[in-house]
């Protein structure tokens, strides 16, 4: 394997002026949505999607990916300076980052967060470049039973890991699978659950569904809160951490990155989970455990490394297996398919320049983010003084236009509105939206592989446990379910300690 020549090929793609420009647009927008609470990377992707129809597929992918990992950097800034997590993954950053800022060490905290993010990203990128091709080669041997079991594991994992109850997440998985069925059945040509509506004969639009459930419902929930925060003024001198702080932060970055990388590869885990786990681990292993909550630097470094490592590593299952791990990746995969790129084990060998170009663009984008982040801190925090009341109608305009441009379909806009109501209702009742979106995109593949496997085995269900790979996925899935039931029963007992 000549890694070097691959990277050179990738550099030839990622270091053109066009690619650098779109990477810049992606990471800057990611930064902005990361800073602002109430807008995640999903609406940002929907906003930029129509633009991507007019550029090369690899440039489109580079830009959309930039939004995702750029959001991780932006989230840290708002958390540290204002105690306002712009993204769920940044909520943990508030715990130590904001106390540090209050102790007059705001710039140290910002600097540490940037360095940690960079370290986490680099480890994630190395993993993508080194591990993804191997995984893809391995996945080439996957047949229908293996894919079915893998996707079942991904869905059950996503249901088990979230913060909501396992049953409710499972309900969302089933609902998502059902929504994914709507449209014409590829095998028999039968129209399923289309109710005679021509616009949904090809299925529901993933971007419209995700935008309603995440974007619009989030806005409904945030509008009522009102008001915008008054940023406090922090002196931004003395950026460099002390020698002692370095000594504490660097091992924490390593541990955080590893946790993040694992969470990125595991389906359903996601960045928020990675930062929570990394923080919990630091609190266990740190010699300064008594300092936690008062501005312990390792409690800032570890989760920041973790969520960035996750953001990069999350591309591994999406690109090599065609199985996205979280909702953002599901929409990213939808976007790739709009561009005629089918993620799967053969992607790296068939489109090496796309894959390696993306890997190199991760490096470019992360360097840009560090440069954007530190000197422009004042600008990012001033963003928060833009009142949300003026902002959200504009976000709605951009989202509606983005969704409409995908298929020039008015029906898709109505879908956004409808799923906005549904999504808001669900989150009020404690039903998490992320498993639904994940299940939605996996549904057609799950059904196809299920059918194909049983066709091969002439209707014998034991085909799923014949092969060792498929059997292991099913075994892990079973363990996941048993563990969820066990912890739900335990949680039912009174006086349960938190975290």
């Amino acid at each position, binding site marked *: 394997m000549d890694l070097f020549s691959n990277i050179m090929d990738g550099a030839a793609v990622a270091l053109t002026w066009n690619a650098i420009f779109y990477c810049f647009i992606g990471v800057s927008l990611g930064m902005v949505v990361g800073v602002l609470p109430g807008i995640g990377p999903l609406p940002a992707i929907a906003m930029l999607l*129509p633009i991507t129809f*007019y550029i090369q597929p690899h440039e489109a992918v580079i830009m959309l990916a930039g939004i995702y990992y750029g959001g991780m950097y932006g989230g840290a800034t708002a958390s540290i300076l204002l105690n306002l997590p712009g993204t769920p993954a940044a909520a943990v950053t508030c715990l130590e980052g904001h106390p540090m800022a209050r102790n007059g060490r705001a710039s140290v905290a910002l600097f540490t967060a940037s360095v940690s993010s960079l370290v986490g990203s680099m480890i994630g990128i190395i993993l993508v470049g080194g591990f993804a091709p191997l995984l893809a080669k391995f996945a080439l041997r996957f047949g229908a039973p293996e894919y079915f079991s893998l996707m079942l594991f991904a869905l059950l994992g996503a249901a088990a890991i979230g913060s909501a109850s396992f*049953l*409710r997440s*499972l*309900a969302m998985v*089933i*609902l998502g*699978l*059902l929504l994914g*069925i709507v449209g014409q*059945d590829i*095998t*028999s040509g*039968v129209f*399923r*659950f289309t109710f005679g509506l021509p616009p949904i004969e090809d299925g529901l639009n993933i971007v419209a569904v995700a935008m309603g459930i995440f974007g*619009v419902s989030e*806005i*409904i929930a945030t*509008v*009522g*809160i*009102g*008001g915008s925060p*008054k940023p406090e003024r922090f002196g931004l001198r003395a950026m460099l951490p002390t020698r002692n702080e370095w000594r504490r932060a660097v091992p924490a970055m390593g541990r955080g990155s590893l946790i993040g990388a694992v969470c990125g590869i595991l389906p359903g885990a996601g960045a928020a989970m990675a930062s929570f786990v990394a923080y919990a681990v630091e609190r266990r292993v740190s010699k300064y455990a008594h300092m936690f909550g008062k501005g312990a630097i390792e409690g800032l470094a570890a989760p920041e490394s973790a969520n960035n490592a996750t953001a990069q590593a999350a591309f591994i299952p999406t690109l090599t297996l065609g199985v996205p791990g979280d909702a953002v990746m599901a929409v990213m995969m939808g976007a790739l398919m709009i561009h005629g790129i089918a993620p799967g084990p053969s992607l790296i060998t068939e489109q090496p320049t796309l894959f390696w170009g993306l890997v190199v663009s991760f490096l470019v984008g992360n360097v840009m983010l560090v440069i954007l982040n530190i000197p422009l801190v004042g600008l990012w925090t001033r963003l928060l003084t833009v*009142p949300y*009341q*003026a902002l959200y*109608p*504009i976000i*709605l*305009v951009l989202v*509606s*236009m983005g969704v*409409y*441009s995908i298929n020039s379909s*008015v*029906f898709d*806009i*109505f879908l*956004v*509105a*409808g799923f*906005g*109501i549904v999504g808001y209702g669900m989150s*009020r*009742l*404690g*039903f998490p939206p992320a498993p639904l979106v994940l299940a939605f995109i996996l549904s057609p593949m799950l059904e196809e592989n*299920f*059918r194909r496997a*049983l*066709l091969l085995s*002439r*209707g014998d*269900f034991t085909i799923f446990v014949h092969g060792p790979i498929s059997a292991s996925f099913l075994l892990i899935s079973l363990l996941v379910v048993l563990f969820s039931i066990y912890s*739900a029963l335990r949680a*039912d007992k*009174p006086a349960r300690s938190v975290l």
Partner: protein
Amino acid sequence: MGDLNRRLDPGAVLAALVMVAFGGFVAWTSTSYGLGSPRRMGAGYFPFLLGVAAMIVGTAILIFEGWRRQPAATPTAPAASGNHDDGQPWPGARWRPFVLVPLAVAAFGALVEQAGLMIAVAALIVISGLAAPRPKLSRLAVVTAAAPIGVWLIFVKGLGLPFKLF
């Protein structure tokens, strides 16, 4: 069972019942698509399984989560009052976002091909802007006037997206 601490959770019960009814509907509809056999599945086989699964999960939610231990661990909505915007909230501050935000998006959809992009954008902004607890009409007017121009400059002039303007 005789636990006095437990009380009915109407939200969970409602969701569970909807889930069971929905699953039943899906399973019943699926039979008309042709179930086939495991060896040669019809179009209805997979949705039928999912419909049954939905009914099972719905029932499980009803049994295990329909009653909960403590009075409501509902996500506490942050108080909408007390910050620097002036005046009292308009009436219906609780339900206005829920109705007006989706309505604004739907209005954009209804207008974008009939009346054109400019009017659709303006309508979306006015309707959704009124969803705020205390809409600032002056600011809303400025955004309503400026947004269609900005959208036209960026998307139609700049990127050349084919939108019908009026």
